[in-house]
């Protein structure tokens, strides 16, 4: 009798019983679970294509194993170094824009004119609502060689027009600047959320101690958002290798392929357009493994250094 009571209230229930008790909750997770298995885990089976040569009429299972040939082909052709360098360059430059949202958030958080604060926050958020295709359309409307806004302006000022769309060296600036425009306001909101949890008493105490505003920002607010910075930095490390294919496809022209052909656009072309499935899967797998490794590494370092980690 006593042991029965313990069983009903204590932790000594068997695992099976505890699972049964929570069946309602499992049922709530079930649809998400099934969809994730089908569309995220079943494709993992298809990764073997990276080591296979799939001919017309063959399936993933029946395609012939060819070992590392697909990878060898990728590494030995010029495509590898070219797409790798292009992808990495975009990734690194993108990483360098990392402090901008932090600065914007600190500015917004310390602005004492409510009207300026509110309107600038709304304005800087708007680009995030605008699609990649439209954002890049705007870039093209501005940078187009003959009808672009910038070149028309240049013409009026007597400056020679610049062929932005047909030179390699303009691809990265167009990509990065449009990226800053799109994402800074959005990312600033995340830091603003973290800043809003700064205890006002702490700020008052700092004021009484004679801290200037600059000191308060540096010694009170920045440490407060440090964990958020760490986590966002880790997350961007994980995608540091996957420059946006959607964006690049928009500004890619036959004349700027030297800088605009990144791993993503390359995989799309050889896989979907040219149907070289095995080869494309191999390139994809390579990127995925590198990204995943980077993420684990960044997470590990962050855990050691700052105690904040993603998992």
């Amino acid at each position: 009798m006593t042991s029965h009571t313990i069983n009903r209230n204590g932790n000594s229930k068997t695992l099976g019983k505890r699972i049964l008790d929570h069946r309602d909750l499992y049922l709530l997770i079930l649809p998400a679970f099934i969809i994730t298995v089908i569309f995220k885990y079943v494709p993992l089976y298809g990764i073997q294509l990276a080591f296979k040569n799939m001919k017309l009429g063959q399936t993933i299972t029946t395609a012939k194993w060819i070992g590392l040939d697909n990878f060898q082909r990728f590494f030995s052709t010029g495509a590898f170094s070219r797409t790798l360098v292009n992808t990495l360059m975009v990734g690194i430059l993108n990483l360098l824009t990392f402090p901008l949202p932090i600065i914007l958030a600190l500015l917004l958080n310390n602005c004492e004119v409510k009207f300026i604060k509110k309107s600038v926050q709304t304005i800087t958020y708007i680009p995030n609502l605008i699609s990649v295709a439209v954002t890049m359309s705007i870039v093209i409307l501005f940078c187009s060689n003959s009808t672009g806004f910038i070149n028309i302006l240049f013409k009026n000022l007597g400056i020679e027009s610049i062929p932005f769309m047909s030179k390699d060296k303009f691809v990265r600036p167009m990509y990065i600047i449009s990226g800053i425009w799109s994402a800074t306001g959005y990312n600033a909101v995340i830091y603003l959320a973290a800043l809003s949890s700064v205890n006002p008493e702490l700020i008052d105490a700092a004021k009484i101690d004679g801290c200037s505003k600059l000191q308060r920002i540096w010694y009170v607010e920045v440490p407060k958002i440090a964990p958020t910075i760490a986590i966002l930095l880790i997350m961007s490390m994980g995608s540091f290798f996957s420059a946006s294919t959607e964006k690049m496809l928009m500004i890619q022209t036959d004349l700027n392929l030297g800088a605009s052909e990144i791993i993503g656009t390359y995989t799309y072309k050889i896989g979907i357009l040219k149907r070289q499935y095995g080869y494309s899967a191999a390139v994809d797998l390579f990127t995925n493994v590198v990204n995943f490794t980077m993420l684990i590494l960044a997470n590990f370092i962050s855990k050691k250094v700052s105690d904040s980690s993603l998992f």
Partner: protein
Amino acid sequence: MKQHSRQMQKPKEDKLINSIINVALIIIGIIVVYPLWIVLISSISDPAEISSGKVWILPKGINIEAYKILLENGDLWIGYRNSLLYTIFGTALQMLITTPAAFALAKKTLPGRRWLILFFLFTMYFSGGLIPTYFVVKDLGLVNTPWALILPGLVGPYNLVIARTYYENSIPEDMYEAARIDGAGTYRCFVQIALPLSVPVLAVMILNFALGHWNSYMNALVYISDDNIQTLQVFIKRITTQATTALESGAGNIDITELTDSIRKTQLLKYAVVVVSSIPMIMLYPFIQKHFVKGIMLGSVKE
């Protein structure tokens, strides 16, 4: 005395910093809004004024030809309709599947909770890639159907995690306990307690999901070849890049006056398309905005 003078100087110093902050923010605001402003005023200006570079502060020679061309373009409207349908339907379905899962995963007593969370999180950082996913969608017979755009991304792991954290942090277990004593089951707790209390995070999720649907074009590019079910973004890409490549690969400097009528029309169309295609999401934003900071804050604080 020295101490005193420092105390006196402090407000002055702060005043200077305040003005620097204000000026910096105003400049940032203008820089961000300027491209959008240019597109908007160009879309209602006389094309001749645009190409002579007179449209850069205010519209010149008000002209709605761009929107007339847009109205005549049937493809774009098919895309517009499709994208709206996919966005509404897709977002609703995502909410329906992600929210209950997030609620359940927030329960600390759930056996295997950590594993389940890891199961969903993993998909954020490692995937089969383009081709293996393509084959799954193809084998299910979804290629060239709207389902190819809706089903594969149905569970948003990122939003799932945000919502789970929100439920964990902002709704105390006692509230459910009280309801349970009144005889409420898990489902009633979810619908009658958790949902009404989580409006901020639900708003953030709706905006994220809707943006994802409205803005994505890579999936449509890969999975959809039938123009009747194609998305707006793909049509936009077509319009923008078509004319550009024709122009850019021609020669560096084509004289404006020599531009053919069709190129001029496409150019105008681009301005109008940017404006019209951005309207739905910008309209959605004010409804979401007030929940924004709270939704993100409570959703991102780690336990």
